[in-house]
């Protein structure tokens, strides 16, 4: 049973005096209840736009076509009041920078309890319980604390507590560890994994960090220039990537381990993202791809079943 279903989603940003920018083009994916799907791509690939679209947070400058269903409720085109209703108890979101997601003039306890039902004492007890859930001891003191008194990792835990306070079924985490120290990153990732398991959350993890993906995800969706290029189970994606872009991403990771070779220079994917206003007619990766053929430049590849999952490429397969 899929909790999240995105079908043929296109998002175009139109601004005054600027050509329209196609941020997402015909994206379809499903996430099963209790599953963790990682959304991977470089900056500008549209992964955050997709996360915002699912949360119903795109502003009026974006024209959205296609369908997004969360637990059977349509998000695209829903009235603001319907969206508000849907969000309480449905979708919650954790952001990259926990300082900018917390309100500096409200106490931690008030921010967690803010949207909860019940009396003041009940909400306070619930807030204190949530702080324990996200691994923050000494809840009584923290409820009275201000955001600026906490460390980055604690703030992100508080942001998680606020999100969990809505008892969401779908948690969207938009680069939740990018702004944190490496040691804190590991703690937050472990916490996310524990919460996901204990609470049966469905997790949509937006990241560009493949280490995070390997740690947490069940399945991975790779976005490139607004289109899905590959969707596969995490093991399959890491062992037998089919799309040349995915292969490039994996090859670009620095080697790590006791017998890892010292590279004079890290591997990179040559070139940069194509312009998206308007996007090129054929495969968007064509200009950077070693396997490019005439067909790639003219005919856009659709997502098709491959040996490992789904891939959008005319010449898929293992690295030659």
């Amino acid at each position, binding site marked *: 049973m899929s909790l999240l279903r995105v079908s043929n989603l296109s998002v175009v940003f139109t601004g005054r005096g600027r050509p329209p920018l196609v941020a997402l083009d015909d994206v379809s994916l499903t996430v099963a209840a209790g599953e963790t799907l990682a959304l991977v791509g470089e900056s500008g690939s549209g992964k955050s736009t997709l996360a915002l679209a699912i*949360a119903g947070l795109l502003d009026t400058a974006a024209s959205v076509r296609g369908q997004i269903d969360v637990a059977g409720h349509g998000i695209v085109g829903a009235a603001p009041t319907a969206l*508000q209703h849907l*969000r309480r108890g449905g979708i919650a979101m954790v952001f990259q920078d926990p300082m*900018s997601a917390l*309100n500096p003039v409200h106490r931690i306890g008030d921010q967690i309890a803010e949207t909860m039902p019940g009396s003041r004492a009940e909400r306070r007890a619930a807030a204190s319980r949530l702080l324990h859930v996200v691994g923050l001891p000494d809840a009584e003191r923290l409820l009275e604390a201000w955001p600026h008194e906490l460390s980055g990792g604690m703030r992100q835990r508080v*942001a998680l507590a606020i999100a969990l306070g809505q008892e969401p079924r779908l948690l969207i985490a938009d680069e939740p560890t990018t702004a944190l120290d490496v040691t804190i990153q590991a703690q937050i990732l472990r916490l996310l994994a524990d919460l996901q398991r204990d609470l049966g959350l469905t997790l949509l993890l937006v990241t560009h960090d493949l280490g995070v993906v390997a740690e947490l995800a069940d399945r991975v969706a790779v976005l490139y220039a607004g289109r899905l290029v590959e969707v596969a189970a995490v093991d399959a994606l890491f062992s037998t990537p089919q799309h040349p872009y995915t292969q490039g991403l994996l090859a670009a990771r620095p080697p790590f381990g006791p017998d890892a070779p010292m590279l004079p220079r890290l591997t990179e994917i040559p070139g940069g993202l194509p312009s998206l206003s308007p996007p090129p007619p054929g495969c968007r990766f064509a200009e950077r791809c070693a396997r490019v053929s005439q067909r790639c430049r003219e005919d856009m590849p659709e997502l098709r079943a491959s040996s490992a999952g789904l891939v959008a490429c005319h010449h898929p397969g293992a690295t030659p």
Partner: protein
Amino acid sequence: MTHFARRLRRDVPALAGLVTLVLVGAIALAAPWLYPGDPQDMVARPLIWPFQDAALPLGTDRLGRDLAAGLAHGARVSLLVGFAAAAAAVLVGVTVGCLAGWFGGLVDDSLMRVTDAVQTVPGFVLALALVAVMGPGVGTVILAIAVSSWTGTARVVRAEVSSWRERDLVAACRVMGMGSGEILIRQILPNIASPVIVLASVVVAVAILVESALSFLGLGDPALVSWGSMIAEGRGLLRRAWFVAAVPGVAIIITVVSVSLAGEAVTAALDPRDRQ
């Protein structure tokens, strides 16, 4: 409240400002009991210098009116006009700024062009014109000052709101199911209270000055004593009895300065980063 007191103890100028303002306010409130009767009544011979007569500590003016009584009653007008005009101006400014900053686009453009238009007219000239058209009176003076001084607040609030609108906090609140009004009033406004209060204290100070200036020009409420009209009264006597103009002048300076200092004290008290 305890952190506020502790902070004030360290910040002597703010404390002095707050105490002075409270004192001036108390004198204004108590004026009818401190100096019963009309402050425009003649009580002694004219032009007694200050500190000569224990019953008339600040002396008398050209017509033998008690300057201390005039000062106390004038404080009522100055503070009433100052605070009422500032409250009206800040209310309008915050509303306009919030709408423009939050909704952006056409709403922003049209509201800001109106703001531009009002701002191009010098504030005092606008107030002068309004009072000249509508006739003198406390209500008119308040309205005139409010109309000419909401623009600064509107601009600052618009800039702050449109910057807060883009932060993750707003997206987070939306995901939590809050509506625009709730986010604006409960989440964003408390964060921009500091600059608004500082601005408000400036508007109060300017309003007191504008009221004095209008009264000095004879455009204040003719039925009431105000500090401005007292200065106007002393204008012709500067060579012989400068104290008649100086006494209300010093009162204006002290009040305006204390309003500014008190504004800073309140701002600091509201900032959680200062609550250690």
